[in-house]
């Protein structure tokens, strides 16, 4: 599924517009960056509450192209800037990681 379809189908809120559109094959849910680094598949969407810049560095290295920040957490500007540089989309949702994972799994 394409990144923008994921946004529309799940009613996600993009943290910035005109993000790079990629093909999303699967998802990974974790708040531990080492876990993401070691175990997430490439072309995943990451479901997490870690709303900070280091999450983007980790995604970029792991080949993850989209992040969903759960539970309505605020995305800081330096995270958005880093995501733009790395071509990673960021979305936010009020849902928690459990509900978000369920929804993402359902449409992929």
């Amino acid at each position, binding site marked *: 599924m394409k990144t923008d379809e994921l946004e529309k189908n799940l009613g996600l809120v993009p943290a910035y517009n005109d993000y790079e559109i990629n093909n999303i094959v699967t998802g990974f849910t974790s708040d*531990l960056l*080492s876990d993401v*680094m*070691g175990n997430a598949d490439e072309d995943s969407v990451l479901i997490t509450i*870690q709303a900070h*810049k*280091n999450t983007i560095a980790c995604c970029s290295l792991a080949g993850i192209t989209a992040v969903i920040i759960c539970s309505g957490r605020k995305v800081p500007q*330096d995270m958005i800037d880093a995501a733009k540089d790395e071509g990673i989309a960021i979305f936010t949702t009020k849902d928690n990681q459990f509900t978000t994972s369920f929804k993402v799994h359902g449409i992929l």
Partner: protein
Amino acid sequence: MENIPINTDSPSVIQEIIYQLKIKDVMSKDLITLRKSGTMRNVQVTMAKYKLSAIPITNSMRILGLVSIEDIIKALDYGYINDKIEKHMTRKLIVLEDDMPLSFAISYFNKYNFGRFPVLNKEKELVGIISMRDINAKLLEHLNSAMQALENSILNENPSTIQSNEKIFQTTKFNFEIAGKASTEIKKSLKKLNLDRKFIRRVAVASYELEINQVVHSDGGTIKAIFDKDKITIIAKDRGPGIPDLKKALTEGFSTANDWIRSLGFGAGMGLPNSKRVADGFDIESSESGTTVKVDFNIPKELI
């Protein structure tokens, strides 16, 4: 007046100093104070005697006001130098707290055009006074030792030994701002070599874990990548304090990271195990003077 530069573009060593130093580490603690019942003349004499530019007016440990040299000049000018202090002292004070990082004090000097700020502790007692002079002196002192450390680390990495197929990056303790930069650069270089994504990712995982380990656990160090024809080697070398129990450190889930590190998503106890798992070769040595981890990756024959 020109702003004092304080921003995230500053080199990490500067940022580390201004965010890690607290106001109490920098302020003057030898306080000369006067009571409000004295006269402005008393203030003037005390200032001259101790070469001060401002005197806090207190009642035991509570600050009531401040008389600055500007106030004394005015008092002399308008002829009220023999008036009581309480009539002319500045009562509207901007104060700082002793536990705040030094960066706060610098931004206050930027914001307000004052020569000094009184410093209170949590109990609202006056414990010091901070001026730009205090800040300059302390900053220079810390910059000197930081530069010394930097020079030493450069000497350790003799430039003539850095080959054209090598890249070297510095890491600093607790500097999460640039954590991941070395790995990102290494990944970019690998992409240029047209290696496949899976291979690049294995190298990226190891270099990122080793880089974060240095930021979280060590006093800082270097990440070196060596790009050979048939293999890629990453050498992570830090300046201590060393790993007391290597066996434990290599156990998945074992971590010595504190709560705030964990709240950032680090410290899961997977750093070294992850690096070892993805690498073809893994070597670790640790003593109090530092830890060196060497990982290598054999480039698949069909890609050479």
